[in-house]
């Protein structure tokens, strides 16, 4: 693999609680603005956690033809973010050989919102089983599936190549991007549209994560609730949205004169092999994931200028991740800025890996490192430089982005300034 293909990022797009595109999301992050607020989508006043980071802006997207009906919120987030990435890459429909153009998405199955489920339950009571069967919307089974966003994006952008969907909870889109990198390197495609999407601010998820005790309950201060690496952190804050990147083999990008944002240098992945909802305190899974990414990228710890942490703001993740960063980067860890942008936009779960990789690309392009909002109290278990409160001007040539999840999968992506 000595003459390994180089893979570059030529397009980025996102929908986040801070804004429905990269520009507004990035502006929010640089300004240190929190998108966390009391939940408006439903009456959350009875829930143990009553706040989240919702996507509130209208999506800059109209789905064509029947796709307007064949969609659900997660696929709409995906379609909007992917459309921005494709436009940003300057790729018009038909610009890439369809069979050399693939899609890799991190996503999870979705479910109808609870009022709809309840309505059906009522209807079920009043009807025969045959009537109940006939009342089910035929497209729902397909549209709710985890793989549907990948199907939709393939159709919308004419991508007839490899089509992959990863569902590893919070690690999904770090791994979907990692897969895209592998597919491109080995030559199974020239261009991959890779990213992730998730829609989380609904009753079932607020209940489900709430019952597990994973969510912050700081109901009196929603904007101060997500405080990664701060000693007083008490859980994560649900966000939602999508992030997509256009990844391309370097020679393909050069041949079409594409503008190159950054180079995707490496991918690492490990499993905690521990318990479903938490990770070993020594951070070994996080360490192994980062080490594999560095090795894959041919980098030394000292080359790293910024780590966008998974940093969920749970007691357990942030301590374990800090230990993992120190394990992987050694002494260098103490002088490398580490920030968690979840402090501002919440936890985008299946979308966080891709969105936070876009954050790293923006840090490289602009020389600005976004802060960890709400970091105030040092935790002995989290002894690193977390860029508290305010964005920092700092040249970034190489960044790492971490994502870790329920089920124990860990993913790390290494991205760098492109140098011909």
């Amino acid at each position: 693999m000595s003459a390994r293909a180089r893979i570059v990022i030529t397009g980025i797009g996102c929908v986040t609680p801070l804004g429905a595109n990269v520009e507004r999301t990035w502006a929010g992050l640089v300004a240190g603005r929190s998108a966390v607020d009391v939940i408006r989508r439903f009456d959350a006043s009875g829930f143990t956690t009553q706040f989240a980071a919702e996507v509130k802006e209208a999506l800059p997207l109209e789905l064509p033809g029947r796709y307007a009906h064949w969609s659900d919120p997660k696929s709409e987030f995906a379609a909007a973010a992917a459309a921005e990435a494709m436009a940003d890459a300057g790729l018009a429909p038909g610009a890439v050989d369809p069979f050399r153009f693939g899609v890799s998405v991190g996503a999870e199955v979705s479910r109808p919102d609870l009022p709809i489920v309840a309505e059906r339950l009522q209807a079920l009571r009043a009807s025969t089983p045959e009537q109940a069967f006939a009342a089910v919307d035929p497209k729902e089974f397909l549209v709710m599936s985890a793989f549907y966003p990948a199907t939709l994006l393939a159709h919308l952008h004419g991508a007839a190549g490899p089509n992959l969907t990863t569902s590893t909870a919070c690690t999904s889109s770090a791994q979907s991007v990692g897969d895209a990198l592998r597919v491109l390197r080995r030559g199974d495609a020239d261009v991959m549209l890779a990213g992730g999407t998730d829609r989380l601010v609904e009753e079932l998820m607020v209940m489900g994560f709430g019952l597990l005790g994973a969510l912050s309950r700081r109901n009196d201060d929603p904007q101060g609730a997500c405080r990664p690496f701060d000693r007083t952190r008490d859980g994560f804050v649900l966000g939602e949205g999508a992030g997509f990147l256009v990844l391309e083999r370097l020679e393909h990008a050069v041949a079409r004169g594409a503008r190159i944002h950054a180079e995707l240098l490496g991918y690492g992945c490990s499993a905690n092999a521990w318990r479903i909802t938490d990770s070993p305190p020594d951070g070994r899974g996080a360490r192994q994931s980062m080490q594999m990414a560095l090795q894959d990228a041919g980098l030394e710890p000292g080359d790293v200028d910024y780590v966008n942490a998974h940093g969920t703001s749970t007691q357990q993740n942030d301590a374990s991740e800090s230990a993992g960063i120190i394990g992987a980067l050694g002494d260098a860890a103490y002088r490398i800025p580490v920030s968690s942008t979840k402090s501002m936009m919440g936890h985008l779960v299946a979308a966080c890996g891709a969105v936070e990789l876009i954050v790293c690309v923006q840090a490289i392009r602009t020389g600005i490192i976004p802060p960890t909002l709400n970091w105030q109290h040092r935790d002995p278990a989290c002894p690193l430089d977390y860029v508290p409160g305010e964005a920092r001007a700092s040249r970034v040539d190489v960044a790492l982005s971490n994502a870790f999840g329920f089920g124990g999968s860990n993913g790390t992506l290494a991205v760098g300034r492109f140098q011909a």
Partner: protein
Amino acid sequence: MPAELKDVVITGCGVVSPLGLDPGDVHARLCAGETASAPITAFDPTPFPARHACAVRGFQGKDWVENRKNLKLMTPAVQYGIAAIRLAAQSAALVPGVVAPERLGMFVGAGTAFGEMGDLVPALEKAMVDGHHDARRFATEGMPIVNPLWLLKGLSNNVLGYASALLDAQGINQNYCNSGVGALQAVGEAAWAVAEGRADVIIAGASDAAFNVEHLTGFGRLGVLSAGDRGRPFDVQHDGFVVGDGAAFFVLESAAHAASRGARSLARVAGMGNATALRGLSGCDPKAISAAFQGALRVAGWAPTTIDVVHAHGNGNPRYDAAEAGAIASTFGPSGPAVTADKGGLGHSISAAGGLSLAVALETMRTGRIAPIVGLTRPIPEAHGLDLVIEAPRSHAVKRSIIHCAGLGGQTCALTIEAP
């Protein structure tokens, strides 16, 4: 130049299937023309446009999962997956100490986890106010009676989460929720990960359970189920598929690693090809199917004429059978390979189906007997040029095989394997 997939071998195979838990038996029973398809008695099938299913019989989760607390959180599909993983590890003599935990990976194809919505009915009833769902009431009255671990039961990566902990597999991993291509993509991507040097050994495969009310409703409304007593791939009477349950997992490692520990090779993984149908939402595009075949042949470096057997997807859908038959004819030419398919005997276990086909393909190689297509007596006109194996098994030394599977979103994946 595309990278080569060199010297990755399969050293173990484990299955949980409607025709038993031993790959040799499954193959022998298919050779005898047996089908597992039987009338549905587990619940009243009257509302559904299907009366038959392929159930896994006599399977006890507690035989495979020692931890009873965990077992309670595992759906049947998760239990099948864990059993098949243990059987695969056993078959490859993969005992603790054979491989370092961080060098042992796991790639899983999983089905759609609906999140056990039925468990929420009592809570939803409590939230009903004047015939409408009340979110506040749901939180205050309903939530307290929901199992706090409800969310965990619905995680789509539970096979990976539990099995990686069970086997201390800390290496690279994946969980694909990608409909019918999950198994072969997991095996193919795992083979590449071994070739990339990311792991010494990877356990890869898939599990799924389609024999349940949710899948019969979803597939029934999409109009893809057979009303008959079994699936009839490529037969003039084909009218859809019969749902099935199952799991199939494989142990992959480099030939050198296998040799160093004295493990026998069942076959070499030679290539994988992926493509996506962009016409309609059922994937009936012969061009995409051909592209997947050609991709798997190209990576292997093989001419189509060197293939001995095609293990077709053969889902019994009239349009899909016609498209697949056309693609086989156009890819492999007039004096093409023997064509077999197993869904008439095993049903369609969606994510797991391609894995069961791979297990059958390995047994076909080992025994030199190609099973007939159960359910096929009179081929459709589109298949007239194909060398379909009908009625009786055929003796044939099998050196090279190709296995094909497809998903509901138009994903299509082919895998080439070679006898040791």
